């Protein structure tokens, strides 16, 4: 199953189980979304549970907050993460704060899905990774799966969650595992273990990271597309790296991170988003605070550059296996 099919399956399972789950967004209804993540849902569940929305992100999120306050469980799509900014006020000032400011008189169980990241020549308006804009906000949960099985399980967990969840879907991974290299052929999800998505309503709990590659010498913290880049870099450099797929950025599985770094004594942090004040800065601070006396070398961040996501120079912006590999070698020299 592809990640798109897994996401669709999660919607299907949740909608079948609970009438309160409603799905809407731009092009989401009849057509099933520009990436087809909601295809067939309108036909199966009717127009009042899966429908097209006007092109107005603050309206999509704003109405969804009202629906969540009523008692529904909206699962809404922002067509690209790059389009979420008009809704930022609704997310930050309203969805994230409702429980706290009303002392739970009203709550906001809401999932906001959005395709994230580059690698499809989307230029600056279809490539961004805005996770740090959400991890910085108290009251939100932030999730980014790296494979179909996790995408389904994490989405089901997010829908079941009583609080607002920002669900970031790495669009580079939608149709096939990206093995870290843009210039080499992809394997399909069919031939990948994580493309084997369990049937039914099994969740992957929020707040639990996963070690995707065991290693002894350096811990690589990654999420989404970067998990595959990290794995490719480890394989190609021969560095015995332990790769941790964070899966949930908020709440963060700090236990798994510290256990690994305290074991390896080295840490490389990888993300696609811009560097300055990126989520890597928070990870670096936490690792420093928790693991300083175990560290053998300075922690290194490998990230996108502090530029808008370029079009023609996409793969020079993207922190690929060569840059991650270089960081692995550097961290091993100390």
């Amino acid at each position, binding site marked *: 199953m592809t990640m798109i099919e897994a996401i669709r399956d999660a919607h299907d399972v949740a909608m079948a189980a609970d009438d309160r789950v409603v799905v809407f967004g731009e092009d989401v209804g009849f057509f099933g979304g520009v990436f087809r993540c909601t295809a067939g849902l309108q036909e199966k569940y009717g127009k009042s549970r899966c429908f097209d929305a006007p092109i107005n992100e603050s309206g999509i999120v704003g109405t969804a907050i009202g629906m969540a306050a009523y008692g529904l469980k909206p699962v809404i799509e922002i067509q690209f993460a790059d389009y979420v900014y008009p809704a930022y006020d609704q997310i930050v000032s309203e969805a994230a704060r409702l429980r706290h400011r009303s002392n739970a*008189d009203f709550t906001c169980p809401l999932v906001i899905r959005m395709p994230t990241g580059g690698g499809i020549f989307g230029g600056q308006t279809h490539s961004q990774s805005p996770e740090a804009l959400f991890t910085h906000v108290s009251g939100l949960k932030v999730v980014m799966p790296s494979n179909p099985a996790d995408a389904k399980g994490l989405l089901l967990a997010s829908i079941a969650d009583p609080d607002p969840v920002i669900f970031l879907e790495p669009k580079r991974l939608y149709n096939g595992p990206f093995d870290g290299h843009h210039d080499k052929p992809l394997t399909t999800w069919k031939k990948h273990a994580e493309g084997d998505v369990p049937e039914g309503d099994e969740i992957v709990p929020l707040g639990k990271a996963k070690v995707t590659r065991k290693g002894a010498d350096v811990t690589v913290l990654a999420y989404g597309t970067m998990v595959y880049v990290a794995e490719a870099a480890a394989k190609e450099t021969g560095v015995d790296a332990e790769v941790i797929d964070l899966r949930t950025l908020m709440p963060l599985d700090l236990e798994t991170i510290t256990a690994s770094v305290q074991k390896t004594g080295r840490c490389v942090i990888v993300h696609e988003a811009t560097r300055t004040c990126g989520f890597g800065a928070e990870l670096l601070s936490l690792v420093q605070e928790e693991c300083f006396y175990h560290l053998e070398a300075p922690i290194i961040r490998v990230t996108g550059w502090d530029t808008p996501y370029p079009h023609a120079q996409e793969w020079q912006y993207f922190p690929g296996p060569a840059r991650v590999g270089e960081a692995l070698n550097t961290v091993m020299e100390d």
Partner: protein
Amino acid sequence: MSEELRPLSLNVPEPGCRPGDTPDFSDFEIPRAGEVLRPPVDVAADDIRDMAFSIVRVLNKEGQAIGEWAGAMTPDELRTGLRHMLTLRAFDKRMLMAQRQGKTSFYMQHLGEEAISCAFARALRPGDMNFPTYRQAGLLVAVDYPMLTMMNQIYSNADDPLHGRQLPIMYTSKEHGFFSISGNLGTQFVQSVGWAMASAISGDTKIAAGWIGDGSTAESDFHAAMVFASTYKAPVVLNIVNNQWAISTFQGIARGGVGTFAARGHGFGIPSLRVDGNDYLAVHAVAKWAAERARRGLGPTLIEYVTYRAGGHSSSDDPSAYRSGEEASAWPLGDPIKRLKQHLIAIGEWSEERHTQAEAEIMDEVIATQKQAESIGTLGDGKVPSPRDMFEGVYETMPPHLVRQRQQAGY
């Protein structure tokens, strides 16, 4: 071609009257009471376009109720309405004073706008939901929300239902159809549409009411609310309280080139009308009409309440810096309490003596409740909820990083 191009200049609208000027409302067109007719609830938006430029009025200068919008309320109901408005005014007076005495940080009063929220509340049913701004506490007063709880919230004391987390007057009560006030402007207008859509999705019979001020209609969320309400025919009443002033900015800055705020509804195909916001009977009648439309699945209604903010924007505001002090008394739609009182007296259902007595009784009740609230604590005396409370309720289950931070903070 030798066309001479002249330099462009920017148009920045100005109010008719600034400090030191004599207020002049002579070009403010006010239709006679009863002049605007009551259309059937299933009227098409296009057929009542003129209502967005006129004003529904019931009470005339002599205090008589005139026309098709009159006659919906019994004398008992009207006396109850008067009591609600008097209560809100007394409450405001005491709480504003309490703020001045340092018992709380901030207060916002309703002076001159009491009819709008008090009368509107009586047009809804239990289970309906308001998404209010900070100047609609009458929605709580008129459904008998405990005044003590309001004061506890204003004082952020141990019995504050919001545990000291939220600003004074930003009330919340699901049970009383009062959505949690955010304090951001405009954001909740569109949420009311979402709540109404949810009722329709669920096959429910409840309706929602959104609230926004004249100034905040300039926010994008106003447009979002109108689009969604229009598209999905949401069972919602969308209320614009035009009290002429957004802090120091006169309504013309938000209104721009359009004649009235209500006229904004025309582009969305939403039946839109203006009502005399200082006329309790007119507000109630129009609210009932719009609520019935929503409840019968006829979709949204946009209502502009024409009123005047007779007090400051908040306890932090000094209106004498930007508008004439005489503007409030020159306001041609009068005072909502005086007008309802005059009507009740005119129909033989009230008297000056009863009014004076009611005012005194209500003030006594407010003061007694205030004493009770102050015995529990005030922000000023520091008897506030534990700092532990700020860590609670960020999420349903406290995540590990917040548990650590709470311990670090010593709670």
